[in-house]
Structure formats: C-alpha cells, structure tokens
C-alpha cells in the first residue's frame, strides 16, 4: 500500500513523516528518536510503550501511526528533565520503584493517567490502574509507594504544568 505523510506532535514538537499504513505509533515514535517509548511485546501485553494520545493513555504498539495523524502525543521524556523532573518521575526515583527501568516510562505515564483523574487513589485503585504495565523486577510494592508519594507531592504543590508546559491534565482527567 501507498505511504502517506502524517504529522505527529510529540512532546510539543511537530514532526512530518512519510509512513506506510502498517507502521505502528510505537515504531514511528522510536524512529523519530523517542526511545523512551519502550518495545516490550508489540501486542499490548506489557504496557512499556504507553503514551498519551490526545490526552488518553494508549499502548502505542496497538495504534497505527496514521491514526495519530495530527494528534498531540506525550511521552515520558516530555514530562521532565534531569534538572526539572516531573514529580512522578522524581517519586519513582526516590522510592526504589526503578530497578532495570525498562517498564518505568510506561509506569510513570500510567501513574499520571491515574492521578489526573483521581488525585488520592487507594492501593486497590493504584494496583488496578497499573495492571496493564508489567514489571519483572520490583514486585510492584515500591511502584505502589511511588504512586502514593507522587499523589502526595502533587496534592501539596499547585504545580500542574511541567517544565515544558506539556504536563496538562489528560482528557481522562478532564472527563473524569
């Protein structure tokens, strides 16, 4: 099938690229250099490739890049930097929730999706919200602690915008 040109707005930067129809959003993002979007299974089992697509958390391996034409995409690296990490990123680092780190970007975005719609989740709600993101290292306990710490820190601060102005509440949050 013919290729076509699509525009992907990733972390505030527009990219125009020519893609075949069977290219997934995961492949396109990694091709563009957003390697923080991890490829763990390519069929929605692990959640390592999670991104926000127009404010909704998706597994980017299950979305075709053409479907994201013109959409706003937010990846983990769009949330913060070493100098100015997002509170969720910092909480993950502080609680020992990061071991091998391969699941971490997806976990952090799943956490953001949860906290955007529910700023004070219970442990059961946290575990439910992260159940699509596999981790093989931690046993999830320290990740749950990281989500709690994130929630606490976010509630205490009135900071709703990340360092690059990308960290707006997701659509899920607005609707929820």
């Amino acid at each position, binding site marked *: 099938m013919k290729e076509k040109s699509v525009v992907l707005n990733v972390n505030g930067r527009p990219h125009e690229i020519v893609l075949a129809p069977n290219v997934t959003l995961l492949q396109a993002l990694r091709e563009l250099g957003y390697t923080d979007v991890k490829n763990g299974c390519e069929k929605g089992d692990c959640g*390592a490739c999670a991104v926000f697509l127009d404010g909704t958390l998706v597994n980017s391996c299950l979305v075709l890049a053409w479907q994201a034409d013109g959409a706003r995409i937010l990846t983990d690296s769009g949330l913060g930097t070493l100098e100015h990490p997002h509170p969720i990123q910092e909480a993950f680092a502080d609680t020992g929730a990061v*071991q*091998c780190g391969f699941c971490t970007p997806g976990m952090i975005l799943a956490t953001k999706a949860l906290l955007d719609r529910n700023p004070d989740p219970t442990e059961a709600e946290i575990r439910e919200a992260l159940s699509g993101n596999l981790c093989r*290292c931690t*046993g999830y306990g320290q990740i749950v602690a990281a989500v709690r710490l994130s929630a606490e820190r976010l509630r205490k601060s009135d900071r709703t915008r990340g360092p690059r102005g990308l960290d707006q509440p997701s659509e899920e949050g607005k609707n929820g």
Partner: protein
Amino acid sequence: MNRVTPKPLPEGELPPLRQVGRPLRRVDALGKAIGATAYAADFTMPNMLHAKVLRSPIPSARIRRLDVSKARALPGVACVLTGADLPDAKLATDMPGQTGRSQRAGSDAPVLATDVVRFHGEPLALVAAESVTLAERALAKIELELDPLPGVFDPHEAMKPDAPHVYGEDNVIARWQIRKGDLEKGMAEADLVVENTFRMPFVEHAYLEPEAGVAWVDEQDVINIRVCTQVVEHFRSVAKALGIPQNRVRIRGTMVGGGFGSKEDVTVEIFLALLARETGRPVKLVYTREESFLASAKRHPFTITHRTGVKKNGRITAAHITMVADAGAYPYLTPYVLLYATGMAAGPYKVDHLHVDSVAAATHQPFTSAFRGFGGPQAALGYEQQMDEIAGALGMDPLMLRRANYLRTGDTTGTGQEIRSAVWLEECLTRAIAALGERTPDSPTRRIGRGCASTFQSYGRITWFHDTSRAWVGVEQDGTVVIRCGVPDIGAGQSNSLCQIAAEILGVPLERVTIYATDSAVTPLAGTSTATRQLYMSGNAVSSAASTIRTCLARRAAEEMGVREDEVDLANSRAFVTNDPSQFIELANLVKKCAAEGLPLSHLAQFNAPFTEGIDPETGQGDIWPDFTFGAQAVEIAVDLGTGQIELLKSAACHDVGRAINPAAVRGQIAGGSHQGLGYALMEDYVVKEGITETPSLGEYLIPTSSDFPATEVIVLESGTGIGPFGAKGIGEPALTPAAPAVANAVADALGVRIRELPLTPERVLRALDRTRSVAPRVRRGMYGEKAPD
C-alpha cells in the same frame, strides 16, 4: 588456599557510616525515570543494516534443504548466512567470563544449525538488510525443507537405551553425586522413613527488555558490539567462535532491562559480530518478544525425590536425594546448575549420612541454563516441601522440626563445606511468620493455609572457577570521584552500590561520584553480573581501590593539619580532624596539593575470591562456594473450594544480608525476588508440548501483574558477617529461593494433601480436592507454634 575469615560486626559496634546503609536515591534511577537511559535497542549507527534470524519451526529434524539464493537476490539484502558459511563456528556455552581455570563441560553449540535441528527455535540462517521489513521479506524467501526426526521430550525417557540421540553419546549432560557418611547406618537409626517426589516446570525469565544489540567494525578492525548482557567477557566467546584474536572484539554493555540469568548466555552478539564482519557495515538486531521466548534459556524442570530417615524427636538421621533435570537441546550452564542443586539438595540442615545422585539429560526441548537461583530454587522446593511432609508424618510443628536440624556456624554443608558466616535461619523464619499477624479464619467457601520455607543460597561463583574482579577509582582535581569498572548493571543497583561504597570511603556525597561501567575495552574487567557476585566481588575491589586513595589523602591531610594520620576523617568533601572538625581542608584543595606533588590519586584494585581446586568426584566433598545467604519466607493463602483458585493473602520475607549497602535497593531485591518466586509457585508455566512452545508470548505465559499478589513484607537483618564490603552478603538470588516452597507448603496446609507439581493451578487444586474426598486428608495440626485452627 586463600581462606576467608569474616570479621563479625555485631550490632552496636559498627564503624560510623555516612553513605553506606542509607536508602539513597540510586545513581541510575532518575535517568531511567525521565526516559533518558539508552538501552541496547535504542542505538542506531549511520549506514546501519537490520538483522533477522531464521529459526526452526519444529524441534527435531534433519535439514534436507536450506536454499537462501532467492533471499540473497532480493534488492536491499546485504547478506545471508547459513551454517554452511561457517562450518566451524561453535559457541562455548559454559564457563562464561573471565574464569582462569578451565574445566569444560563439552557444551559447544553450533552458531547456526548445519545438519540437524534439536529444538523449536534453533537458529538456521541470518539476514542483514536495509530495513527490518526487507529483512523479514528475505526470511520469507528462504527455502527450508526439514525431514522430521523422532524426538525425545522427557529427560527420563532420554536416558533409556533406545531413546533418540540429542547430544553426546547417551544424552547425559552431567552427573554429580554426594557420598557422605554411611547411608544405610543412618537409615537404620531412623524411627521413620519419609519418601516424596516433587516436580517443577520450565520457567521463562520474561525480562521486559528483549535481547538487542548493534555491532560494527571500527578502524582498528575491532568488532564493537553494543549489547544488553550480563557478561561483557563474552568478547572472548565471540572471538573464539569467529576464530579471531580476543583483542579484536569489544563488548560495550548497556544498561540491561532485566537479565535474571538469561543474558548470561551469548544471545545476539555472535550473530551481530558475524554480520558486521561480513558486511563491513553496522548491523542491528532486536528480538521480538516471541523470538526472545524461543531463543533464550529456561529454568530447568526438575524431578526431585527425597527419602529421609528421622528420629521421633525430629532429628534427621539420613537422606537419599535423587534429581533429574531437563537440559534441553544444548548443555549451556546445565552442569553447573545441576551442581548447585546437588550441593544445596539437603538444604540448610545437618545431615550426617547423605547420598545425592543427580543427572541432567538432553531432550528436544528448549535449552535450559541460568535463572536466578541457578538450581537453588528447585533444590529448595525439594527440601522444604519434604520438611513439611516429615513434620506431618511425625505430627510435629514444622518450625520445631527445622530448628532441630538447622546448620549452625561451624557446621558443614552436604558437600562438607564449613559455614563460617552467621546462620540466622531461625531468626529469619520466626520473624517472617510473626509478620503474617493473626491467622485469617476459614469460611464455608475458602480454606486458609499457611506455609513457610527457610533456605540458603550461595553468593559468589564456584570457587574452583578462580573468580576475580577489578575496579579503578580516581579523584578528580575538583574532588569529584570516578569509578571505572566493567560491571554490567542489570537493574539490581550494581553500579549504585559501587558508587555508594566509594562515596563512603572517600567522604564525598553520592552525587559527586560517577561510574563508567560495562565496556570490555576501557573499564577494568569485573566479571559477570551473575551468581549474586557483583556486590561481593566488585564491591570489594572498589572498596580496596578507594581505601588506597583514602590512605594517601588522609596522610597528606594529616601533614597539612599537623596531626596524626589516624586522627583524620573524610566526609562531606572535606578532610578534617575527627575530634575537632573545625580543623579541615577541602577535598578539592587537598587533591590539588597531592597532584602537584605527584601523589597517586587513582588506583586499580583486583579482588580475588577464595580459590579452591574442586570437589572429589566420587564423594562430592569439598568447598563449592565462597559463602551463603540465609533467609526465609512465610505466606498465607486462601483456596476457593469451588473454583480451585488460590489467593495469596499475606507474604513476608526475611533475609540476613550481612550489611545493606543501600536498604531501599535491598528491599527491592527481596520484594522482586519474592514476586518471581510467587509467580513460579502459582502461575508461571512455560508449556512445551512435544518440543513445541505453546506459550509463545506474554499473552499466554502469564507473569504476575500489580493486581495478582499483595506486596511481600520485607524484613532485612544485618549480621555483618558476610565476606562482601562492610560485611555484606549477596541478596539477588537468595531473595527468590524461599517463596515458592512457602506457597507450596501453605497450599498443602490448606488442602490437607500436597500437590507435587508446580505451578499450583486451579485445575490441580480441584483434582487435589477430589483426592481429599476419596482419601482421608492428613490431620491438620498446629502450625509454627500457633494453636491448631478449628
């Protein structure tokens, strides 16, 4: 012989520590959290090709035809290689790493199959093309015709005289035996002999990061391989397979997205090296999840039989243990996994009269190799289930039975190895049980069970491997610290621990330490990130290097401040007089003075493990490991009597880690290891039917999610008696070992009968419940000092 005498550091008498022992933010954590850490699949090179591997769709066949001409002719295909192109390319699959002493297990495997295929997924051909899509298209153009051959899919069958040959003359990959004491005499002394057989399945490592790498040939004709590996020393394996000098291969290891033993074997690096050399261009190879499952080792299925003689008071008089392991199609590390299982077969118990007979046989199944615990978890599933069975037969509290038989410091293991560090088994077990709190009552639809296990697991490699590690530590002129160490960081905090140790000894904040790791060419070789050895080995190397520099700094500072050297301490980037911190010199100034006077500000240290010469092959007696970590786990489960579903209600694990260099990292190891063990017990089953993998992805092979189990409560004890830095022991592998037998014992407690095969699926529970209707269940008894439930 280099005997290690650990110095006990009882609580309250510890040297004052400022960095070590604190749950500091790991140095690698934030980079990973913001998505900046580059993993092996994240690298690209100019002019790079993409590789794919053709794999056998069936487990046992003769290759009739493998025609790659159409694939080679496809535009955009740079290279296609088959076994015919590299007839002598074999991969030595045992003894990875830097080991000085050679004791080969004869486990070479062809890089690409030439004549026959021995397992579903065996590599047959390599393609390098301009894109992944083109490489896939080329794979489809390869014409492969296989004549199926009879297969053997069970190690017991494989050892029968008429079994199809997989490998070697009789399919036997390895045998070990222990002959200690007088078995017959010991059995004659027993009041009761208890015999049971336990089985364990294949298990997949299922790290989140599939194997990946990029290779290129540089201007010095050195093959550079950027790869996620636990063993940078595989540059030697690659050089040997290619028939080129070892200094012409460089492994640049990346942060590893989980290893758990499977990235201890050579994975993509040999294919990448071949293709980069053949094409003269950079080549990238990234496995899909399905390929990762097919291409990588599994944990060995074991069948373990215990025949144990006991006195009425619970003392074990004798034990005869047999083990049969499935080696799969190629040996890989099977001989050593089997050795671990053999050496730990009797558990942390004193057994004067012990026979162990173990054997591993080749089959047309997935090959099996290292997996966190390395045979220790299977051994523990044997001895800890047997302990509960014995307790049941004697009508004795399982805790009392264990207490009556525990090894103590100074006792010897089954192989006659003296234990020199603290043995806090009882402490660990009672703490884990106590952490469960009040017992949940049964209900009409749910039966509650409790179980525990106390286990031991070695840390450090087999001592006749003559293991070594090196680290370089230096202080820059601004007082910042650099470590160069070839340690692969597989996510457990390997690099962070080294940084924390250097920060402690040199008196600088952790953020003032930078580590360069995992490059076989420019970082001093530190050995494998396997066998729970990096903190022990490289931690000691860093400690030694940093201490040498500290001595130099302290001496110069003493001179500057007019005090004795032993009156100087280093902290907060200052050297100061211990009793009068107002007298100090900034580290940066001190370093400048040293540099101006030509005093050494860097040091390369090597740490050698104790070296031994092996065990007696007839008796199995001798030292195998440097030391052991002791720990325990206790769980409470509920069995749904209608569905057979098991719910884990509570879990607690307690280990003596010697010294927690970073308590948060230690807790992470224990919690994560526990979870893997819980998955092993309750869900994970890598199903192989007639050699064909039936659970080819994370959609079929289920690992625990955040919703499956509650967190394991972690209790960390510190005896200070380990032989690692600051009295540390290793915890990576020991963390996993007690979880599965604790669950198995809890389920047996709930049902009144034992399910002798993992995983404990609802189907097996329901069958066991059926059995309890026809056979009177074992009398339920008081558990672990508790009152018997009504």
